[in-house]
């Protein structure tokens, strides 16, 4: 079903090791245009490394990253961002000395040099992610959940074609998760493709069109949520482990 859609991003046979430790081994991931793809896997499976390879913070040892018809392998992070890939960081990285609005303004400046226009857009996005009441506060003083929202707001202001979301739901109260899930659906409806790393399985199931399972740095399985959850290897290697622990 998904094969007809052209991929916006494809990671092709990417490997990466750190000082002999193999973080990614021959990883292939295809992110179809307009869909939400989730990467799941236990801690240390290589999810964040994969993100950093795509976003340009890390150069892969082998393989290549194709985005929107071009090869972006090894591009520096700022060029990848300008090409249309926005990202959030798992450990939040606010511009701590600036207000919430100004944080988003920096990103909005990427699309327009006019200050008034960029400010208006930043204020609108801050409102949209639910940070309206915090707009004039210093970003460094926001609570964790607020900083998570700010990460998302900044990435959105870039007007990306592809959003890389690294655990945007971690640290957010279960009662507030639905708001973020709804927001991500809205963003998808606006035509933005997403690749997300997430531990909150309920959200992964609710949002994803495709799921890629990483295990020990290699792709264990990929497919629709139904396919993946029925896959014996996945149950054994990942879900099964948790079940055994839960039952044991």
């Amino acid at each position, binding site marked *: 079903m998904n094969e007809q859609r052209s991929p916006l991003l494809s990671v092709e046979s990417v490997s990466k090791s750190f000082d002999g430790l193999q973080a990614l081994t021959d990883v292939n991931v295809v992110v179809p245009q307009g869909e939400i793809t989730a990467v799941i896997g236990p801690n240390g499976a290589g999810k964040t490394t994969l993100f950093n390879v795509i*976003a*340009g*913070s890390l150069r892969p040892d082998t393989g290549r990253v194709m985005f929107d018809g071009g090869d972006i392998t090894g591009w*520096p*992070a*700022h060029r990848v*961002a*300008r090409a249309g890939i*926005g*990202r959030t*960081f798992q450990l939040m*990285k*606010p*511009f*701590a*000395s*600036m207000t919430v609005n*100004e944080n988003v*303004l*920096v*990103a909005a*400046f*990427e699309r327009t*040099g006019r*200050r008034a226009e*960029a400010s208006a857009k930043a204020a609108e996005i801050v409102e949209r992610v639910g940070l*309206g*009441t*915090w*707009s*004039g*506060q*210093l970003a460094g003083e926001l609570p964790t959940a607020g900083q998570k929202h700010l990460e998302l707001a*900044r*990435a959105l*202001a*870039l007007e990306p074609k592809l959003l890389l979301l690294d655990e945007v739901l971690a640290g957010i109260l279960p009662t507030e998760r639905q708001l973020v899930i709804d927001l991500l659906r809205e963003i998808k409806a606006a035509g933005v493709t997403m690749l997300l790393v997430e531990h909150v399985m309920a959200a992964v199931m609710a949002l994803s069109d495709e799921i890629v399972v990483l295990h020990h740095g290699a792709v264990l399985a990929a497919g629709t949520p139904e396919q993946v959850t029925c896959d014996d290897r996945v149950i054994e290697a990942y879900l099964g482990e948790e079940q055994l622990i839960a039952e044991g």
Partner: protein
Amino acid sequence: MTRVAELWRRIDRNVKILVVVAVVLAVVPFVLSGSSLDIGVRILLFAMLASAWNLMAGYAGLFSFGHAAYFGIGAYATAVLQVDYGWSPWLGMLVGMALAGVFAIVSGYLSFRYRLRGAYFVLTTFAFAEMLRLIFLHWDFVNGAIGLRVPLIRESSWFDMQFPPGSRGYYYVVLAMLLAVLVIVVLLMRSRSGYYIVAIRDNEEAAAAVGVNPMRYKLYAVGLSGALTAMGGTFYFQYIFFIDPALAFGPAVSIQILLPAIIGGMGTMWGPLIGAFLLVPLGELTSGLIRTPPEFLSFLSGRAGLDLMIFGALLVAIIMFLPKGVYGSISDRVTARRQRRQHEEAVT
């Protein structure tokens, strides 16, 4: 009249302060004269140099312990062109600014390219200044250790940036330079480039993730800071009529440039200016006290270096009790209070 008032209300707060500061400082020479005018000139010179340093160290977060390099390049470029070729110091100033800007960008590029951070970056800036000092010390073309002297023309001339003793000329030249630097800082920090520079300081990785090229904007800040610092070097040579490698490139110069900004508040608009207003008179006071102490302090007389110790102790006290500088600490408190109120209003 109401239209003027309306216009005034819409102007940025820092621009308003700048206009008021400019008017007040322009009137000062009609009140002061003689040696107090000299103190005024030094205050403005170091306010200007510290503001230029603040651009790189405060806003861009690239702490420099070697701004003497840019200062010295400005002083020597003017001196050589004036003494050997008869150029106007104004032209020499432009050449010096260009050379210092290029030197700052090249040395900055090397540091960033090889990822020197923190203490290593600071030491590199120091090393570059020392390197220039040693080169000039042994370079016959610039008269080596002997240095260069301003050719005296014995008349007041704006073209030659030379005025008779007691004239207000020097004061207005350095005031114009200070205002130029402040205007550049105000405009830059409101612009896209200014936001990028601060974003990179706050978090380089996050800035790159929204499309900001960190290398480009760090070099922008460094180059501009270097060029503006060179302007002060030009003025210094014209004002004291003399330059040699130690006066141009010595570590003492780097320290004098950075202290007002640290005392006043790094990364703030008005910190360097306030710092210079506190430090320069304080320095005059302590050194004057040692030269001619009052009766009850007569044991101080002739103890060279003691003034520097008093000075140092005062600095330690200021840094201990106002770690973000005089202006920085106060403005932080005001901002925090305003934000708390705004947030409470927004929530209710």
